[in-house]
């Protein structure tokens, strides 16, 4: 422990770079630590930077401060119990992660999900996307000094929390998606307020655009900052708004529709410049489109009232609580599913369009109750990887703008 500390301390204390320090006009390059507890690194990202005055010559992102071994946890916990842990990956959009994992399980098991459950999932996923983008926009604005924006977006997120609270009983970490459907149906009364939220929320978005999009300072701080070409973005494996900002119209919801996304009308916004400003515009427009999808989902839910919300497959789906309490066989059945539910031999991959990009779950089964392998494709990891490419040689203030515009969540990066 003491060795490690001394090594670290010495490393950080190294002030003299390779520069010639007899030259009075060019001082030494200073090694600087941004993070793991720095206001602009959003969680526990640490950037080791070599600063030449305000210009950061070299940036080395260090991850791992939030590593909890999620993939290994999945392999030891079993198929069903990992749902709770998916919430903690990208903790800004727990329900979207739930859906992604459930889809991977269902693909491996060959389980059909009832229509109503699919629609509820779409509603939840789009609401999650909005909630995550709210944070992305609010936080990136706060990093550039527009602190009030953070409160405006959080105010709206709070209202979305209320909706999730009413449906799932939790504000965060909902764990409400099950293999084969949802834990419970959604009530009609709640859908009315959900629909209302999607409308009122959009008027707020218009106001934010007045505050930021047309703002000269905001424009100057973001335009041309962290510019990425199509080829570079693809080479780095970026997905989601960061890729679309460069002009690549890649969106899993359109390209490989899941959960019946092909039945919804929406557009995929794409940018031209691929800079921080475009990434901001992408998120604003995606929130509008998400609200549009969510409202269509609400209409569809009104049309299929009373439909099944959970698949009727006794191999993978828990029996109803009423039956468990009243019948010995059902109790045993529940016990068997909870303790050693096995999935068929094989492997499956399910990717969902999360707010950060393609969130993928790859699972492999050897036919037992323990997963053979569970791998997560976390879009945030790619977003972090691209930081040196975008920010090296830029001013400290620009690096902060780049960090904010890339929108990553360390819970997902470290897993």
């Amino acid at each position, binding site marked *: 422990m003491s060795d490690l500390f001394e090594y670290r301390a010495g490393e950080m204390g190294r002030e003299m770079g390779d520069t010639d320090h007899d030259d009075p006009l060019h001082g030494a390059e*200073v090694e*600087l630590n941004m993070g793991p507890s*720095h*206001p*602009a690194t959003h969680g526990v990202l640490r950037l080791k930077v070599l*600063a030449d*005055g*305000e210009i950061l010559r070299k940036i080395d992102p260090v991850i791992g401060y939030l590593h909890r071994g999620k993939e290994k946890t999945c392999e030891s916990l079993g198929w069903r119990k990992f749902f709770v842990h998916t919430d903690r990956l990208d903790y800004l959009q727990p329900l979207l992660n739930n859906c992604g994992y459930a889809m991977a399980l269902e693909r491996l098991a060959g389980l059909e999900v009832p229509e109503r459950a699919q629609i509820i999932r779409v509603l939840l996923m789009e609401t999650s996307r909005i909630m995550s983008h709210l944070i992305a926009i609010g936080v990136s*604005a*706060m*990093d*550039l*000094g*527009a*602190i*009030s924006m953070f*409160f*405006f977006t959080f*105010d709206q997120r709070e209202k979305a929390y209320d909706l999730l609270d009413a449906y799932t009983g939790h504000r965060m970490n909902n764990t409400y998606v099950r293999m084969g459907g949802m834990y419970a149906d959604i009530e009609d009364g709640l859908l009315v307020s959900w629909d209302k939220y999607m409308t009122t929320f959009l008027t707020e978005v218009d106001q934010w655009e007045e*505050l*930021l999009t047309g*703002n000269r*300072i*905001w424009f*100057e*701080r973001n335009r041309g900052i962290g510019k990425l070409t199509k080829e570079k973005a693809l080479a780095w494996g970026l997905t989601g708004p960061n890729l679309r900002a460069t002009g690549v119209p890649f969106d899993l919801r359109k390209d490989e529709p899941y959960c019946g996304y092909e039945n919804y009308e929406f557009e995929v916004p794409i940018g031209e410049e691929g800079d921080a400003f475009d990434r901001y515009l992408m998120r604003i427009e995606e929130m509008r489109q998400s609200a549009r999808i969510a409202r269509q989902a609400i209409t569809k839910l009104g049309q299929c009232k009373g439909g099944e919300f959970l698949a009727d497959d006794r191999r993978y789906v828990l029996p109803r609580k009423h039956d468990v309490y009243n019948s010995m066989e059902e109790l045993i059945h529940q016990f068997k599913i909870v303790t050693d539910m096995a999935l068929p031999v094989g492997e499956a991959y399910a990717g969902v369009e999360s707010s950060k990009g393609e969130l993928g779950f790859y699972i492999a089964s050897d036919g037992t109750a323990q997963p053979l392998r569970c791998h997560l494709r976390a879009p945030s990891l790619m977003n972090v990887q691209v930081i040196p490419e975008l920010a090296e040689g830029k*001013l*400290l*203030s*620009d690096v*902060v703008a780049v960090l904010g515009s890339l929108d990553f969540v360390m819970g997902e990066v470290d897993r």
Partner: protein
Amino acid sequence: MTVLLATILKVVVIFGALISAAGISTLAERRVSAWIQHRIGPNRVGPFGVLQPLADGIKFIFKEEFVPEGANRWLFILAPALSAAAALMSVAVIPFGGLITEIDGTPILMSIADLDIGALWVVAIGGLGIYGVILGGWASNSKYSLFGGLRATAQMISYELSMILCILAVVAMSDTLNLREIVNLQDSADSRCFGFLPGWNIFYQPLAFVLFVICTFAETNRHPFDFAECESELVGGFHTEYSSMKFALFFIGEYCAMIVMSCMTVTLFLGGFSVPYWSEAPFLIGLASFLLKVTFFMFLFLWVRWSLPRFRYDQLMNLGWKVFLPLALVNILLTGLAVSL
């Protein structure tokens, strides 16, 4: 003797009022920001939270006094004192009001010192405040603090020039550096703009007014020019390593500087304590008029802070050297021509 007593009384009252106003400003900052951000803000200590600054002050006094390892101890302690003292001293020449009373034929005026070089005093002493920021950033032995100090240095050089040129335009028009006389000139009936507008310099020097107000934001290190502090980039900038009353002194300094700069704007451009169309206004009315105008500019400081994003450091330098300085020079040229003709 009584004149001396009256002067001492004025010193005590004005400094006391300024420090209290700085405290109230911190509360106002929090309440206004809460109002802008759909929150409630501190409203628990006393009616409407008015005792909150007092509670904060007590809290600061009881916090641990901390000097980081490797810091230059004396400069580290001197920096916040310098910052606060400079802001407090520059208020000495601000004319808050007109004649209070006469004692033995000596007029007692509502300002601590009626200096003939008042405008110069504010610029000179107010400019010293930046040493607090620079020294604080340098003495902390922290890289983030150093960045803050460096930024403050560059920012000051680019902005004080334009600001002084704006003051110079007013001085050229008024032919005096005495702030009270500048106010009196704006008050006189024959200085009316177009014959009906009050004779405030804002109507004669609109460009200088706009530039001056923007420069006061940079001068006081306020958002959108708060690079020295810049919490999202430099953690806390020059005051990252400060705690306890040393930290509070920086804040008193910052808010006092804001108040002094608002006072300067009002004095130079908005007729100071004069009341439009009422030259014979009683002392208290004049004082109230002054405070009202100052309150507006204080609110402007808060309003801007909670609405706009922050500039980038080099954008500010560009703005200062390439836009404001040429504009201020042109303004001086035009003023000079107008005065000499």
